[in-house]
């Protein structure tokens, strides 16, 4: 007798992705699809796609989805959630979308305590537009617009979104995870589950920041990228729970 131990989640479509080799987006989308399948929530889940590499998320997830203007998914999601307060609404955003052009929207969604799950894929670079500096680009990191590396004087410091949102009373669950190893991917799935649970139990605003590789615009191979996440990125962006409604300090 055959036992299936691993298969494509039903919520993932058969469309080949447009992501570059070694990109982390495919992993995150798969994890979301696995949770939707396991929890049986496909028919009550609505996703928000941003502008940037993740815009075509709606081609890969077999659920109702809406596109938003650059940075606006938290506001558009707010409008959707007010119509369907018992549905599971999530945004899927990159670092340029959420932490630069959409800073106001994410801060105020958190401040209102919107009962929505925000999935924040941080790869420290604008991938879709050929690798420019992101708000989360690390000091010294070379990008298309910081050819000599990001320096504090000209470009400021990388923004730590989880820590920034933690000071707002409206945020309920904030965790930073990474995709650098199978173990970390399992932790990422747990964090995503916690984010969706936070929403389903109406506990309010949840955001999961996922450190994700961009080998193409980091000018590295896949292995170096994973090492870079573990050894460099996590020094600027420490992993772990930043805020949790279940374990209030």
């Amino acid at each position, binding site marked *: 007798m055959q036992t299936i131990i691993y298969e494509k989640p039903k919520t993932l479509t058969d469309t080949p992705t447009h992501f570059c080799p070694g990109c982390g987006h495919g992993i995150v989308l798969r994890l979301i699809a696995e949770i939707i399948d396991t929890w049986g929530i*496909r*028919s*009550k*889940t*609505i996703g928000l*796609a941003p502008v940037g590499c993740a*815009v*075509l998320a*709606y081609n890969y997830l*077999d*659920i*109702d*989805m*809406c*596109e*938003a*203007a650059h940075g*606006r998914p938290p*506001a*558009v*999601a*707010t*409008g*959707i*959630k*007010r*119509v*369907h307060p018992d*549905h599971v609404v999530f945004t899927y955003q990159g670092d340029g979308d959420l932490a630069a052009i959409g800073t*106001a*929207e994410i*801060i*105020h969604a958190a401040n*209102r305590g919107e009962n929505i799950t925000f999935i924040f894929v941080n790869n420290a670079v604008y991938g879709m537009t050929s690798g420019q500096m992101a708000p989360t680009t690390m000091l010294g990191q070379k990008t298309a617009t910081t050819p000599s590396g990001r320096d504090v004087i000209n470009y400021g410091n990388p923004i730590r979104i989880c820590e920034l949102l933690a000071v707002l009373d409206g945020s309920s669950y904030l965790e930073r995870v990474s995709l650098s190893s199978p173990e970390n991917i399992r932790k990422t799935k747990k964090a995503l589950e916690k984010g969706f649970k936070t929403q389903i139990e109406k506990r309010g605003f949840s955001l999961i920041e996922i450190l994700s590789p961009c080998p193409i615009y980091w000018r590295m191979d896949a292995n170096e990228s994973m090492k870079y996440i573990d050894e460099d990125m996590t020094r600027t962006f420490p992993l772990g729970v930043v805020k949790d409604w279940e374990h209030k300090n």
Partner: protein
Amino acid sequence: MKQLLTGNEAAAEAAILAGCRYYYGYPITPQNELINYMSVRMPQVGGTFIQAESEIAAISMVHGSAAAGGRSMTSSSSPGISLKQEGISYLAGSELPCVIINIQRGGPGLGDISASQADYFQAVKGGGHGDYHTIVLAPSSVQEMADLVYDAFDMSDNYRNPVMILGDAQIGQLMEPVEFYKKQKNNLPAKNWSLTGAQGRKRNIIKSFYPVKGELEEFNAHLQKKYKMIEEHEIRYEAINIHEADIILVAYGTSARICKEVVKKSQQFKFKVGMVRPITLWPFPKEIIRRISEKVQCILTVEMSAGQMVEDVRLAVESRCPVHFYGRTGGGVPTSLEVIRKIVEIVPDNKVANTLLKLAEVK
């Protein structure tokens, strides 16, 4: 029962009666009565009121509620409407219904807070990026504001297109008696495209991104076909004395109220004045203006701007008769006497005989 309300309040109440349950706003003068009214009324009817963090967020929230199938609205005034253009372009590109109210004030920049009609170009020519149109309705009284808000929701649902109500500080803030007739269309198309969760059906996707070569051109052709249909079915205007007139005034909103007074006062002159008041600014009533231009001596467009709608009048007239313009900007409001002086200046001499002497006595 008639109520004495400002245009802003009438717009808000009419929206509630039209079934709007999702309102997102941001404070800006001269539309504050509207957002304030909504903050009281929406909770009373179980609706959503959010004072958003910005105009951009407010229109994006409209985007979300419209995508989810709810009747949604936002309102603002000129500088705030500029900020909303990003969202309006996305709404048009995603074919989402919604109502946007612009209570115009003076510009450019921060301008001032008094009445203006200087956002005409922005409203009727698209405003944001891309080949699109919003349907633009121009009320000239508080009652008409209420009536047009019902129609705006029905039209937006019918065509899956944003509708803008283009008022100004005077229409928004003056108080007049208004009666609310709830008259929602019954045969509106079902919103089976909306995001409700993919229950027993294929997923729905609301988007405006068409990266595959040829797809966007095809989508734009579809939009243009829709706009053509709107032009065929939705043009509205009010015509006064157009059959015997020597000169026709073209004006909308507050300017049209002034021009109505001009038509009345002109009865004491030898020349005859009529007027056309566009109610839909887009689609523009170009056919009636074209027909009129074949019979009259000249046309005078009156606006509270440096001359914007006059360009559409000229496009309709195609040089069949002279098209003149009289306007005031930056909060200046034309008086009926100013308009009459302008008429005297442009009407051919033989029609003005004896008029100049009387001008000082115009009542």
